[in-house]
């Protein structure tokens, strides 16, 4: 089981990430995260299962494919096959900022301590860390920086606007 951080705390993971063959049987009960193709192909069948359903997106998959479903999805995951593949950062911002996804947004795969802060800024609130990571120690990474120049999902107003607001109120 990967180690999970949710909302900057260690958390117990109830979700099963289904990878590999999309035709692989979905277990009859329990919370599952299915590949996008499985979700698009069997939404109705998944809805009557005993357990919640989330969807995971591969780096090249367009979050627009989920645009109509996000209201009823409790969880969307974005996979990072290698930590150096930064597409998921844009995917997360699109899910949060353009498609207004409010549920749990989880980074899965090659998820390492030194990427957590930026992942969080892009809208992820849950992180299934790679097995070898020290999850407890990794929590400190969220505080590596206490301010940021750009707007993000965590703080939509860029620093320059906040600087000006602070300056004019003085």
């Amino acid at each position: 089981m990967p180690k999970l951080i949710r909302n900057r705390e260690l958390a117990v993971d109830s979700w099963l990430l289904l990878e590999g063959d999309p035709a692989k049987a979905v277990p009859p009960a329990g919370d599952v995260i299915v590949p996008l193709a499985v979700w698009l192909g069997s939404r109705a069948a998944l809805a009557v299962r005993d357990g919640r359903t989330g969807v995971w997106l591969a780096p090249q998959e367009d979050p627009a494919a989920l645009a109509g479903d996000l209201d009823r999805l409790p969880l969307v995951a974005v996979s990072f096959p290698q930590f150096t593949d930064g597409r998921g950062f844009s995917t997360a911002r699109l899910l949060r900022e353009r498609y207004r996804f409010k549920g749990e947004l989880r980074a899965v795969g090659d998820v390492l301590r030194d990427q957590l802060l930026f992942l969080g800024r892009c809208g992820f609130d849950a992180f299934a860390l790679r097995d070898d990571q020290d999850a407890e120690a990794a929590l400190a990474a969220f505080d590596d920086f206490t301010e940021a120049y750009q707007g993000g999902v965590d703080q939509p107003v860029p620093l320059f606007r906040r600087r000006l607001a602070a300056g004019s109120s003085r």
Partner: protein
Amino acid sequence: MYRYDDIDQRLVDERVQQFRDQTRRFLAGQLSDEEFKHLRLRNGLYLQRHAPMLRIAIPYGLLSTTQLRKLAHLARRYDRGYGHFSTRQNLQLNWPKVEDVPDMLAGLATVQMHAIQTSGNGVRNITTDHFAGVAADEIVDALVWCEIVRQWSTFNPEFSYLPRKFKIAINGAAADRAATWVHDIGLHAVRADDGPVEPGDPFPSPAVGFRVLVGGGLGRTPIIGHVIREFLPWRHLLTYLDAILRVYNRYGRRDNIHKARIKILVKERGPEAFDREVEEEWSHLKDGPATLVPEEIERVASRFTRPAYERLPAVDPGFERLRSSDKAFAAWVKRNVHPHKVPGYAAVTLSLKKTGIPPGDATADQMDAIADLADRYTFGELRVSHEQNLIFADVAQRDLDALWRELRPLGLATPNIGLITNIIACPGGDFCSLANARSIPVAEAIQRRFDDLDHVFDVGELDLNISGCMNACGHHHVGHIGILGVDKAGEEFYQIEIGGNQGETRPGAKAALGKVLGPSFSQGEVPDAIERLVRCYLDLRDSEEERFIDVVQRVGVEPFKAHLYAKTDQESRARGRQLAAA
């Protein structure tokens, strides 16, 4: 200088702490080589042939004397007493120890410096015109815009793991001194009579905006950039950059490191299709919170120190007298002194291209001496140019004589700016593990050949650039003469191209890529080959005003090729003239 506020300083300090912890975990075996590689690269630390190399950011090339003294100190303490100014206006130190790097960064942070994003697959140091802020042909002060874009790019959470590195250049003047056409994104400040000017706009009519070029670059696949927007009102600069970077981050190739730059995406999609994608993305971001406001432009501008110029006569009589009586002084003024927007002032280039010294290298002692001179002659600031020289941007005309006399014994007054001996070269095979061939000895051999010839024949402006491999760090594709080191069965050879041009540094020849002339030469043959090309040019030029690049653009490469590969000199000259006349 842009002076940090508390937040700017805090971010740099926090970066030092973060990197210190990453280094500690690496040395303790908690981070793999591969994982640490990506972390150290985004802090400019390479582990290469002989020892590590630390690339220190000099944002848009601007340095205070306090900062230069700190660099000298670091070069002495952690390096072998010198540093290398690069074509990205940065400074590279070789031989620092990995475990010392956090302390070096802490030292840099005390003078508002860092090594943030000087390497790795993020947005690199923003580069600009080395005369920004003082050029007579200026539209906007590019330094202010560079700082705004620097802040946008620094620790940008979405664009820190791009497919590949990303280089942005901003030019604020009419002449392009920032090689903007060969950058991932090039920005030209422009004014438009019909552009929007809103109440409170810091720029009175005509409206100020940017021409946006995308997809230019050198390296293995050199490409001149495409204009995707003729006029972007300045307020929209950051949201538009967000749109370009997002399209690139999502769709740029990640399967092949040699096809991962944005230029390949633009080429494969086609500039029009790429433009449409950017416009679609931008339609969601336009007018969002990242839209710039006049107060921010003014705030950033006000954090730059500004020289307290004296009111001086436009022409200093003593200066004019010496120029007409002292040939050596006149030669230096002609090449190394440049016009200034304030009457009675000039900008001065300190040449780091003295024969026998690797281009761009400066010793720690030189750095200290330069800092002292900058305090006395130019308001305590200087710039690094992408041609690897240093600039004193604000020198009073009446002080030029004294400054020149002090620069000469330091070896910094070589009157060769714009000339063939002002060579741009990468560190090459002497230092770099990627290189196929050495570049520094070749540069030196050419300088030796032309130290006298240049003077005798008055060859005039000629950019000669040398890269030790096809990664093109020496910008050989945009040299009027470009030299590329290649490996032939374990031996170093050099391919020669001509006709490249970094851009309209003055009206006329546009940005262009050089064309390879033919088979490559051994190291010993290179100076002869270059001399043949120059002699061919001298035969063909209309007047001394017509530069080498102008002749190549007028007559094409064939006459040069014939001349270069002819068996005898006589034959080659005759053939060259025939071809030029045809």
